[in-house]
């Protein structure tokens, strides 16, 4: 069995650690199925944080964008989000609020909100004014305009924001063990318990999760882009804007 990944050197050892696990000198089972638990915890933390962040920032961004106010809030929030390192944010929260799932979730939510909020806001304000004017002139109410016009047109860029946040959150959830939640960060932080192989194994898992999320949400983003928009002659410039949006908020 050990020979399976041997030719990959240390990397192979790490893969074996992930799939087969080891028993430490203290007799604890690490790696293997224990990694599944860590991954589950990691995903749970990230997923809950993302869900809350979306539930807050998408409606808020849609509303601010619809009334075309609050650009100050949306923009400065994203700047603050970029300026404050996630580690500092978590340290701050843990120091003030104490450890635990809820506090950790709260800090990840705060981390995830700016890209989604900013992208949602920007994409709604980018919907052509004439399109909105026509919608209003035909007798759509504000809520109908948001639901039937602005949201569908903003969806691609909103998912761009979700993608950035999700990758951020997954990467940042690595430091959760500092707040007492055992995620895939545990082997990275507690090297003594897992050894270097365990640390590398965990790093590989986190990277794989991040890449998987990035690719999946990228596919979702393409899927939610309305067919009619893909045909617009300015699709190229629209893509540019999406890419710009990503850079502006990462």
């Amino acid at each position: 069995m050990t020979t399976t990944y041997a030719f990959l050197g240390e990397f192979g050892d790490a893969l074996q650690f992930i799939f087969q696990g080891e028993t430490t000198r203290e007799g604890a089972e690490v790696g293997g199925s224990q990694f599944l638990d860590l991954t589950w915890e990691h995903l749970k933390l990230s997923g809950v944080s993302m869900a809350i962040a979306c539930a807050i920032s998408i409606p808020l961004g849609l509303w601010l964008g619809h009334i075309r106010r609050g650009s100050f809030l949306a923009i400065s929030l994203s700047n603050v989000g970029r300026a404050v390192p996630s580690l500092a944010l978590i340290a701050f929260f843990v120091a003030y609020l104490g450890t635990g799932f809820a506090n950790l979730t709260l800090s990840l939510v705060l981390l995830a909100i700016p890209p989604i909020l900013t992208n949602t806001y920007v994409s709604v304000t980018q919907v052509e004014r004439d399109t909105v004017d026509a919608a209003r002139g035909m007798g759509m109410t504000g809520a109908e305009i948001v639901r039937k016009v602005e949201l569908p047109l903003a969806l691609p860029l909103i998912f761009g924001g979700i993608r950035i946040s999700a990758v951020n959150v997954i990467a940042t959830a690595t430091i959760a063990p500092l707040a007492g939640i055992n995620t895939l960060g545990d082997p990275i932080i507690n090297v003594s318990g897992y050894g270097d192989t365990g640390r590398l194994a965990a790093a590989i898992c986190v990277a794989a999760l991040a890449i998987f999320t990035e690719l999946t949400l990228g596919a979702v983003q393409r899927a939610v882009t309305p067919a009619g928009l893909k045909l617009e002659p300015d699709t190229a410039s629209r893509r540019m804007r999406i890419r710009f949006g990503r850079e502006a908020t990462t």
Partner: protein
Amino acid sequence: MNRSEPAQEQGPSARPAAATLEFREATKIYPGQDDPAVDALSLTVPAGEICVLVGPSGCGKTTAMRMVNRMIDITSGDILLDGRSVRERRPAELRREIGYAIQQIGLFPHLTVADNIATVPRLLGWPKDRTRARVDQLLELVSLDPADTRDRYPAQLSGGQRQRVGVARALAADPPLMLMDEPFGAIDPINRERLQNEFLRLQKEIRKTVVFVTHDIDEAIKMGDRIAVLQRGGKLAQYAPPAELLMYPNGRFVEDFVGADRALKRLALQRVRDIDLWKAPLVRVGEPVADARRKVQDSDVPYPLLVDADGRPLGWLSERALTGERVTEDLRSKAEPAVELDDVLRDALSDLLANEAQYGPVLDARGAVAGVLSLEIIGHALQEPPEQVRSGADALAADG
């Protein structure tokens, strides 16, 4: 040749599908401004007529139009739709009853043509099959092939097609009033002319009350049953039917605005059938020459016109044809240009000039000669007051 339609005549009013619109001292002062954008505008648009708001840029045309469906709040005064103030209506509900088409069209890029057109019917909760049938009917109405166009996205349409879809969308719920803000403004001249003609033809069928905004006086003359000329500051300078506006502009501003060529512009308002033509000396081969000569004497035209058994023109006869007992087939020239009864005078004049002809036969719908039109007649028409030449809707109706 691209035949232009004459301007609208005063159409028959009071079709149930149209509403009467009345501005009563309607005034708009934008917040933070001292001078009104629209200043105590009072005018009435009878049901089923096209009222064109025209004037230089920034004179308040768009503002006046958008007060009607409360896209812009009225500062003072009132606007009545079928006698009922728009101020007491809920805006969204009011707007669903008023067709709205703008220059930028504002089609929803993420929806198909069919879904775009179905916007208001869906807001009104129409059943699915009724909406679908209506969409196809409207596409046909605006000269688009439903099967081909229905499932396309706006990005897959030409500018002219988009504009047609925009008009179809505005008409979807059969609104008694249409607001159109420079609807053909962004289209090249040839397609604009075509869309204008199509809209006039459409209007003949649907007889909506229409408020049509443009800054182009020629478009105003062509499209309007009545024209409201606005002056900077949103003041109404004159409100009159096109012919009256051209004949009797009520001041320097309107005179300058309609242009120095207003007499020529009037030619676009009249059709050949509206004026008294010369009687044509029609002769057939084999007819006694004495008869032919008498016909020429009775007519203003110096030569007899040879026609076939159905009365269609073959050409002007030469002297040689009248030398014997009976008329022979000796032509001096072909019967060109042939003008049609439904042509507007401007086009007919242009044809005469292009053929360097003093006169030409006028043909009815079957191609038979109905009379002769000459430069002299057109000259008279230019001097006549407009009332005599505006003969009502029958000329239009015949145009089909």
